[in-house]
């Protein structure tokens, strides 16, 4: 069963899978259209919508004045307007909503809206934001040991800064919502959201109607990657406003360019660092200042910054450390979740530091990494106080160094580079240690609702959402395994707030961990009920000489139910279910789960925020043409820890996909803005995610075997989801290794992330000039 295909695969490949835009609608449907700000920062002096309203086919045009509830859709901090009122603070900020009979009419109406603005000065870069001094929320700090002492005693100190770029989620299906009004204030909302409960909550607040009037449903998303964790709420809230006003079904689907312009991205970071280390390269102290660009609203920025700070150590024990985190206001769309959630930005910096230490000490970075790993009890305390238990770093490192033949290949690369002036090769191994759980502890809860029908089929409902990761497949498997029945009996359908309420986002890589356990809880309840009825049934006709069946001994195996003490007593699952029904016992149960023993004190920056850690490592070798800046990923070897895998096929897919997405962030995906705050890369014409020719020519992914999760997770599995993305830092540093070869590894290359061919060529050019 750990080799089950994705539950929707046969629908995906035939075009039968239904996404929101594929739901059949009738001519009553109105097309919703968002009119947004063309200025990054401006006052709205006046506007006139009369002419647009009078255009034939326009049903309504709404401004902030038409919001019946609160004009606010910030998920954590209430600082994000649904529709701008007197000031606009970023390009792409919604000002008006149009509902029209067709998209074309809506666009024509938009042209008739007249808005007078007074332009104000925008803040667009992190450096300018720091100068402005406007933090979006108070700064954060995590501290451990005695940094001053460490620096004083240090043999070596390095200092520097690292810039990492924004990244667009680039889900294939853009943001979309379809809203059907019912009777009274009822709304049925189809939203491509990772967080139906929050989408429901935001709509409820914006419309001023209670949550029980609103049902939010999502069958599947065409990709999300964090981009639909909070920002799907916007499209859903806008469509709901229009449906509420017109009492007609309304659909809003953002056009690709609008989606890229209007929605937030992975946060840019500028990190200043100072690190001390001894002559072997063991790090004794680290002082970090992480500055990030929140955009014009808080959204999830503080949680993302928090994760960046808590992953600034990555896999390395740093006894003396101070991490300061600053989230600055900028006049850009509010940046938001993206797979890794701050982790990549935190790790990129410490990996850079290690890389620089190695170059300075003329050692292989693999060795510097190894001597700095968390190890044993002595080197196990993280900067935030959690102890790294069940550490898999050394075992993965040992196995991967061997299976990838790193040492041999490093030698061959050296020889290759000596012979070639313009083509250089590079290699790097990088680790990932990723903490699993929402750092906001109370979010670590999940619910489920399992129905068994009289024909013996099962409907498993849970609070998680399907975005391609295969959560529904894993839930189907878990339900089948726990029930002792075949997966064909089980259907996992659309996620709905009417089935499971008050859920958390499908995020933080916790979808299966949380919802799988909630499903198990529901199944256990049902099994207990069934067992009682079955035991009674077994006991009905047995002679007095025989022992009676005990409900405790009833087992569920292969679609049958037995008395484990006397396996001749058997009933099929289907017959048992019918029997339970006839006995007037409920065949429906809820399940619930909360992650045990996790806590975090934000004030002190200490706690035990993660239920467990996920580990992995990658070795990447690349070949770089130093004249064109093109690189080829020659080979990538990954060894990743997923505990006892629930589904190897899905897990390998997640690892490969995560790595390639990370490679995109590290290389060709670049977001640039002009001096007015216009995003320049707002379509795939200029925003380049990896394509089929960019992947490793030789891609070897292995799962770490023989190490079930020590934490009590569902079937001792570990999540996969986010962590593999960060394995791509090995690609980023392999490219740097090749650049470094131009200067015979004696000159520290100028480097930033993404390493576009622009960054690469300028860096190489600078080294060549120094060599002349």
């Amino acid at each position: 069963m750990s080799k089950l295909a994705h539950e929707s695969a046969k629908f995906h490949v035939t075009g039968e899978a239904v996404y929101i835009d594929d739901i059949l609608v009738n001519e009553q449907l109105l097309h919703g259209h968002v009119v947004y700000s063309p200025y990054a920062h401006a006052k709205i002096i006046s506007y006139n919508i009369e002419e647009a309203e009078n255009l034939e086919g326009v049903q309504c045009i709404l401004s902030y004045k038409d919001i019946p509830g609160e004009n606010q859709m910030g998920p954590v901090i209430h600082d994000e307007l649904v529709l701008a009122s007197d000031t606009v603070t970023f390009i792409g900020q919604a000002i008006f909503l149009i509902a029209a009979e067709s998209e074309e009419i809506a666009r024509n109406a938009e042209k008739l809206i007249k808005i007078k603005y007074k332009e104000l000065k925008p803040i667009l870069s992190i450096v300018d934001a720091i100068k402005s001094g406007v933090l979006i929320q108070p700064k954060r700090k995590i501290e451990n040991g005695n940094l001053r002492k460490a620096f004083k005693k240090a043999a070596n100190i390095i200092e520097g800064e690292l810039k990492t770029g924004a990244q667009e989620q680039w889900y294939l299906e853009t943001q979309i919502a379809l809203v059907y009004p019912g009777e009274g204030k009822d709304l049925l909302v189809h939203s491509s959201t990772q967080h139906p409960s929050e989408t429901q909550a935001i709509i409820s607040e914006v419309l001023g109607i209670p949550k029980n009037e609103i049902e939010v449903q999502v069958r599947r998303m065409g990709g999300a990657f964090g981009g639909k964790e909070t920002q799907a709420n916007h499209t859903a809230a806008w469509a709901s406003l229009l449906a509420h006003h017109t009492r007609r079904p309304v659909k809003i689907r953002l056009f690709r360019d609008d989606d890229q312009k209007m929605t937030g991205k992975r946060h840019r970071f500028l990190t200043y660092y100072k690190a001390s280390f001894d002559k072997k390269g063991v790090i004794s102290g680290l002082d970090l200042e992480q500055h990030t660009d929140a955009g014009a609203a808080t959204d999830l920025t503080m949680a993302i910054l928090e994760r960046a700070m808590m992953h600034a150590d990555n896999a390395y024990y740093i006894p003396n450390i101070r991490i300061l985190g600053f989230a600055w206001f900028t006049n850009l769309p509010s940046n938001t979740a993206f797979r890794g959630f701050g982790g990549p930005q935190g790790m990129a910096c410490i990996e850079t530091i290690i890389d620089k230490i190695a170059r300075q000490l003329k050692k292989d970075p693999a060795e510097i990494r190894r001597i700095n790993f968390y190890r044993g009890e002595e080197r196990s305390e993280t900067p935030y106080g959690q102890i790294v238990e069940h550490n898999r770093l050394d075992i993965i490192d040992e196995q991967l160094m061997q299976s990838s033949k790193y040492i041999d290949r490093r030698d061959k690369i050296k020889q290759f580079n000596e012979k070639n002036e313009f083509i250089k090769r590079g290699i790097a191994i990088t680790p990932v240690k990723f903490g699993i759980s929402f750092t906001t502890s109370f979010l670590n809860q999940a619910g489920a609702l399992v129905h068994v029908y009289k024909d013996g089929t099962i409907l498993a409902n849970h609070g998680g959402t399907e975005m391609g990761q295969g959560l529904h497949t894993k839930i189907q498997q878990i339900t089948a395994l726990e029930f002792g029945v075949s997966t064909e009996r089980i259907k996992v359908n659309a996620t709905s707030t009417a089935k499971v309420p008050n859920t958390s986002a499908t995020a933080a890589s916790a979808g299966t961990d949380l919802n799988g356990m909630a499903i198990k809880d529901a199944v256990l309840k049902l099994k207990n009920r069934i067992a009682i009825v079955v035991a009674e049934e077994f006991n009905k006709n047995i002679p007095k000489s025989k022992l009676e069946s005990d409900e405790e001994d009833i087992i569920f195996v292969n679609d049958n139910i037995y008395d484990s003490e006397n396996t001749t007593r058997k009933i099929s699952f289907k017959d048992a279910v019918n029997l339970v029904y006839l006995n007037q016992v409920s065949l429906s149960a809820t399940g619930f789960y909360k992650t045990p023993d996790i806590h975090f004190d934000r004030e002190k920056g200490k706690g035990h925020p993660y239920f467990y850690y996920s580990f992995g490592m990658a070795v990447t070798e690349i070949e770089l043409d130093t004249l064109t800046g093109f690189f080829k990923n020659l080979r990538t070897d990954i060894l990743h820890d997923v505990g006892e895998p629930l589904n190897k096929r899905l897990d390998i897919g997640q690892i490969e996909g995560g790595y390639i997405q990370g490679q995109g962030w590290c290389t060709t995906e670049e977001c640039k803005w002009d001096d007015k705050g216009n995003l320049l890369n707002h379509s795939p014409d200029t925003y380049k995610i990896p394509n089929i020719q960019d992947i490793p020519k030789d891609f070897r992914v292995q799962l770490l075997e023989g190490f079930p999760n020590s934490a009590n997770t569902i079937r001792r599995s570990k999540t996969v989801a986010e962590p593999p993305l960060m394995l791509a830092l090995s690609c980023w540093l392999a490219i740097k290794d090749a650049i470094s070869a131009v200067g015979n590894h004696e000159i520290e290359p100028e480097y930033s992330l993404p390493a576009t061919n622009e960054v690469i060529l300028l860096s190489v050019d600078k080294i060549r000039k120094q060599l002349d």
Partner: protein
Amino acid sequence: MKNKNSHIISFVLDGEVVDIDFSGAQSLRPTTTVLNYLRSLPNHKGCKEGCAEGDCGACTVVLAKYEQKKIRYQAVDACLIFLPMLHGKQLITVENVGSSHKLHPVQEAMVDLDGSQCGFCTPGFIMAMFELYKNTSIPTNDQIDDALTGNLCRCTGYRSIIDAAQRAGAKKARDHFSQQKEIKKMLGGIHTNNIQLSNKNQVYHKPCDKQSALKLIQRHPKATIVAGATDIALRVTKNHENIPEIIDIGDIEELKKISSSKSHYKIGAGASLESVKAFSKVRLPALHKMLAVFGSKQIRHLATLGGNLGSASPIGDTTPVLIALKAIIVIEGKNGARKVPMSKFITGYRKSQCKAGELITEIQIPRARNGALIRSYKISKRKDLDIATVSAGFRVCLDKSNIPTDLMLVYGGMAEMTKRAVKTEEFLSGKVWNRKMIEQASNMISADFNPISDARSGARAREVMAKNLLMKFWTETTKA
């Protein structure tokens, strides 16, 4: 019958001939894209919009053409084709390939090997793989890469998709498209007259031969001429423009001819870039190299060399190499045909020698005389399916003393139009073709160009790229 204008287009979909009469259609216009048409139907929702600009391939469909008694399959982006371009063809969508009850071998391979995750891009991949399945016996890895370059997937990391394409290709069997008797009959029965479609605010002409096209162009000098529409379609899909008058020359066979004479290669302006790519592989390797990284297969099936030149883009991937190849552009108009050297064809930002009322009909490329070394280069952020940041077409002949003659250093992406690095060329004239001279010459590039910073790259990096390409050219033209 030939000269009579028809007002109806006909194509085959779901095993039936579909006729569309735009004068009566409410919601359809001649410039409605095939993507939007399919999405308006209840049973073709598998065709997805991911970008509406031909960059993601989620809307890939296959067009079947009946030519020389054979059916030819071509994957295209449905977002880039207007409905009249379907005329006389069979439109095949993912729903036609197979259903969840009866999967086609390419679909089965994708299920078995985990080629889908979120599934949104998957129908597009299936269609590109279906074309490969029908046209290639056992595809090589390069053929698979090439066939799927036009499809983006954000979930899988592609490895599983490549494996699926390999598996489907390795054990090929007959499929329900192998027996196409009925379809051939239907396609053979569709008229081949000139077509004129008009709707509120729009007239769309689809002439069936060159003469009719030239007449129309002279009669309607303001009309927009489209061949593959891969560029013009963006004005509709992205700018939501109404193009009032269109002349579609995309199905004129006379303009698609490719031939060789003793002195020249002659490429019809309407030949698809995919066919030019195949033709140039051995004959014009520098052009082939550029076309191999031009768009994607879906785009190259539609796009034409004439169209690429006609758009006179400042980057125009093919222009630098065509200048270096000393191509000659044949332009036809009222006064017959005239020939313009490629080096003089582009006159400014999106401006060329081809005037209103004229049509580019052929590109003639002289066979290189002995010893001419011609190379093309393209630097882009992503190697494939990306527009050049800097492109180049270089030509040199080296005499016995290793001194360059006939030197041409042509750059795209460095100025408002494709330009030669005149000062650099001058500097090198009479100098020995060695590294020292090339290094000195590359410093002249800054005097030749003053590039801009944009979404693709900064000005400083463009300068470094231009210099580096000269060095690369030198390394490739110098025996080790």
